[in-house]
């Protein structure tokens, strides 16, 4: 059976669903027999859940206006010179 350290090294791949079949089997066998590793995994999942709460928000309308104004000013091209009359 894999050691706890080996299991910890596989946690990210397990969470990403990237473990190949035999590795996943060994991982789950260990988990079935090791409550501390289960705790560790759950803890890592909860940390991820909290991090995901930071995912994309729309910028507030005032910030959108600010961005537009800034870019309008910063990218304003000088008017073409016309013929003087």
């Amino acid at each position, binding site marked *: 059976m894999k050691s*706890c350290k080996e299991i*910890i*090294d596989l*946690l*990210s*791949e397990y969470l990403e669903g990237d473990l190949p079949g035999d590795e996943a089997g060994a991982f789950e066998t260990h988990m079935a027999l090791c*409550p*501390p*590793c289960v*705790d*560790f995994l*759950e*803890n*890592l*999942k*909860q*940390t*991820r*859940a*909290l*991090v*995901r*709460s*930071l*995912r*994309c*928000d*729309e*910028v507030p309308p005032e*910030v*959108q206006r*600010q*961005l*537009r104004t*800034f*870019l309008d000013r*910063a*990218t304003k091209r000088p008017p073409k010179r016309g013929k003087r009359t």
Partner: protein
Amino acid sequence: MSDAQEHTLELKDLELGLGASAAHADNNLVREFIAGNEAAFTELVTKYKDALTNYLNVMVGDYDIAVDLSQETFLRVYKNITRYSNIYQFSTWIYRIATNLAIDEMRYRKRRGQVFYNNIWAKNSDREEGGQEFEISDGRRGPGEEILRKESSQVLGEAIRSLPEKYRTAFILKEIQELPYERIAQVLKCSSGTIKSRLHRARLFLRERIKKYWWGTRKPSARFSESGKGAARGR
């Protein structure tokens, strides 16, 4: 754009297996903009402003500075659009510009002894009041739960920004911006394997930093209680 460049772009899209049509749409907008259609630039800004500002906000931990950096990113895109090479997706290029700006800003602040922990959580905390955010499958209930959540969020924000630069950037691009490994590798100019390694270490480090908020009064296994220490060392 030459046929060879077009072909390269298509291959990249297929290889990465993501948003080929989105990437194609971006490149069409870039072409239109270069041809003089200013509205195409506005469309690119509209498309990326939310994701980019959010990314910069988590990176630097100050919303006002994030907005400034977002503006600067778009300005650089505007000024340097002809230097964009479509062997990468447009979004890869814009994230690279934003990442470099954020890193420069953080280094500048670090030199001046300033720390970014201002108001990154303000927006989420406001929403948390309405019960929309931080729904964690915790199972614990009690009068101190809200306080605990806010506190854990604060600690998490600080923990993210205390990660070494290379781990922090990879972590935010993956876990918050949801970019695939291949794209992160392009943004940060390293291999996917390196990104996976950095991400794993960052996760262990963060878990270690905030574990007490999950365990509460439950004592963690002694075997693992120190396992996250030094997790952010290495490549």
